[in-house]
């Protein structure tokens, strides 16, 4: 059983373009679907409301860790922290890292999320329950939106 998520994707865009999409708070918000209140600053919290239809009441929050230009962007957060009545801040966060690497066709982006061994068991179960119905529909909405606005 893996306790880490790792994904690699090749993007047909230069590293500088991908870096901007990741670290400019407005651009990040576009594809991540969150209306951030201000720029990312290492060591500082970043927050904003989720912009997915039906989830606008949910506040997204992360703490920016590293910003090494065109190489590494990382933050800690609480995955699935979507219940406004729960204070997640006392729970151990996971670490999200985006690593960029130039390749002939553009950029190789490696995403890792680690630290799941510390996520409380009840939260893991909850994430599974809450996600099953609602998110599937939301994902369809997003796909439609992206298709309309290429």
């Amino acid at each position, binding site marked *: 059983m893996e306790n880490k998520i790792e994904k690699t*994707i090749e993007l047909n865009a230069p590293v500088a373009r991908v870096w901007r999409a990741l670290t400019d708070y407005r651009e990040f918000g576009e594809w991540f679907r969150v209306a951030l209140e201000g720029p990312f600053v290492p060591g500082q919290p970043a927050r904003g409301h989720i912009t997915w239809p039906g989830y606008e009441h949910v506040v997204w929050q992360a703490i920016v860790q590293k910003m090494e230009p065109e190489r590494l962007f990382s933050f800690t957060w609480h995955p699935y922290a979507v219940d406004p009545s729960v204070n997640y801040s006392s729970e151990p966060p996971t670490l999200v890292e985006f690593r960029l690497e130039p390749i002939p066709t553009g950029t190789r982006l490696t995403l890792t999320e680690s630290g799941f061994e510390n996520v409380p068991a009840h939260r893991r179960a909850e994430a599974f329950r809450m996600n099953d119905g609602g998110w599937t529909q939301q994902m369809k909405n997003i796909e439609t939106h992206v298709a309309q606005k290429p």
Partner: protein
Amino acid sequence: MSPKSHKRARSPRPQQAILFAALGDDTRLALMAKLVSGKPASIAQLGAGSSLTRQAITKHLRVLERAGLVHSVRSGRERQFAFDPRPLDAMQHYLDRVSQQWDQALVRLKSFVET
């Protein structure tokens, strides 16, 4: 098995580190192998055919109990132990879910930077 007869593991938040530690031992894996059939077993039954003392088995069961993998059921004067798959299921589901969300986010990122 009525819910009343169940005694849940002491730790309300078994974490994955505890889970892995609990499973990282040959004796405990052997005990788990006997319990995964789904039928609760007593310490005497678990020790049958092995050289393990009652004390050693109790100690190992306690570790499994703390990880939420085993819970004890009182049956008359004897305690019986049953396998509980939920910690393993919850962990896998959770990672699957987070993983799927990233897949979708990365697809959105791709279309965002490539246009």
